């Protein structure tokens, strides 16, 4: 098991949002975390990232407890994040954004290699290196966000609503990239409101409601589940 959340409780200050959540993600899996708006998906991601503290429970990554690690250390373990809303540094160039993605990598040669890898996945970024991130279209910004997250050559990538607000063509492209990354050996936690699409590419899934996991299983099973169909697939 690569990642394991053991009964974590977390939230914002006194406000508890995530209640007794346990999850696990195996190496090379895509695991989908689905749930309605406000269910607490992003809160779970922020907690794993170290941006929010756990009030109880533990988070284990490759056998090591990381729930008390400061946020800036998390990336050094091999975890990376495509945050909700992209959070690019919009007044910086594409190249600077990518370099910041490899901030913890001190070996310049490896930074170059990672950048080549990212440019191979997203040729558009190579062509636009010197452009300010803020001037990109939504789809391009999402590619840059994913590229930035890959610059640390992560083992485990958390993607929070990577297809939000994008046109259908770009959404398909994003999901294709997720699949490509899996084949390149990146383990992925995918948070999406596009429940059908994410369960279609995922190996397994968890359904979150009001901060608690209510259902989990193989993605194909979840797609057939009557409750999931009714609540999330509009059937």
């Amino acid at each position: 098991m690569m990642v394991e959340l053991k009964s974590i409780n977390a939230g914002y200050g006194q406000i508890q949002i995530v209640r007794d959540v346990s999850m696990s993600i195996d190496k090379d899996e895509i695991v989908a975390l689905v749930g309605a708006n406000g269910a607490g998906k992003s809160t779970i991601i922020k907690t794993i990232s170290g941006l929010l503290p756990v009030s109880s429970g533990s988070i284990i990554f490759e056998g090591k407890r990381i729930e008390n690690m400061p946020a800036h250390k998390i990336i050094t373990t091999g975890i990376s994040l495509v945050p909700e809303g992209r959070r690019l540094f919009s007044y910086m160039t594409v190249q600077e954004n990518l370099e910041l993605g490899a901030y913890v990598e001190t070996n310049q040669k490896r930074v170059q290699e990672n950048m080549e890898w990212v440019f191979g996945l997203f040729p558009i970024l190579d062509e636009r290196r010197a452009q300010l991130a803020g001037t990109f279209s939504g789809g391009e910004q999402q590619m840059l966000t994913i590229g930035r997250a890959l610059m640390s050559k992560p083992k485990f990538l958390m993607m929070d609503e990577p297809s939000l607000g994008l046109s259908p063509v770009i959404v398909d492209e994003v999901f294709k990239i997720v699949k490509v990354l899996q084949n390149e050996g990146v383990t992925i936690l995918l948070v999406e409101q596009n429940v059908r699409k994410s369960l279609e590419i995922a190996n397994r899934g968890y359904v979150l409601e009001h901060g608690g996991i209510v259902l989990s299983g193989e993605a194909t099973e979840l797609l057939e589940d009557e409750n999931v169909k009714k609540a999330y697939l509009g059937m």
Partner: protein
Amino acid sequence: MQLGSGLIIGSVYALVALGLNIIWSITDIPDFAQGSFYVIAAYAGYFAVTLAGVPFPVALLLGMCVGAIMAFSCERFLYRRWRERTFRAAARVQLLVAIALFFLFANAANAIWTSKAKIFPAYMKGSLLGLSYMRINVFLAAIVLFILVYLFIMKTKPGKAIRAASMDVGMAQVLGINIDTVNSIVFAMGGALSGAAAVLVSPLYSVFPTMGDLPLLKALVVVILGGFGSVSGVLICGLGLGVAEAFGATYISSAYQHGFAFFVLILTLLLRPKGLFGRV
């Protein structure tokens, strides 16, 4: 003549404002205490010259170090205490602490060195176009410091980390940037800039415990007008304010010289709530 003296006092505003701006845009702390680091750095420079007889550039460096160490320590041992894992929440407490520190240090300076102004000996004779070299040096040094800060922020890896943190602290952390380190660097930089401004003007206006008040307040105006996070905006606004004051004092009334900045501030904010160059 007005242009020259305006540019010089404007350089002082700009230097203090640059430090305040960097600190403010990254930590959300309007660090009023910079006004007292300014004073203490000036005294440090004064004593270094008068008691130890060091050359002026050494006194300048010393003043910068004193400013840097004081600002660094205040962040490290005070402001940081109120910055919990949700960083921005503590901003109001930190503002109060900043104001308290300003009055505390100002009071201490007054108690230790008395309110009597100390004459900082001239370190250079001669003038150019009616401006003494010492005045011109203030302007030149300010330009050099601005260029250095600009290059540091734009071109170096720690500089880019600082810029990233000023845009999105949480995201910067996720990418591995240690915010404690960033804060230490920006406070030390801010203190060094205040210290530099103080020692540079001391030979022109003498050294006294309240000498930091006006530069501090004017610098706050410059930061707000110049827009958070903008290095060039601060330089232009700082120099512009100095020049406007100098002309205003000559052609309108010198009695209103120090109110002018605040009048402009309110007027500008009414018209452009984000300041002239504001982006964040």
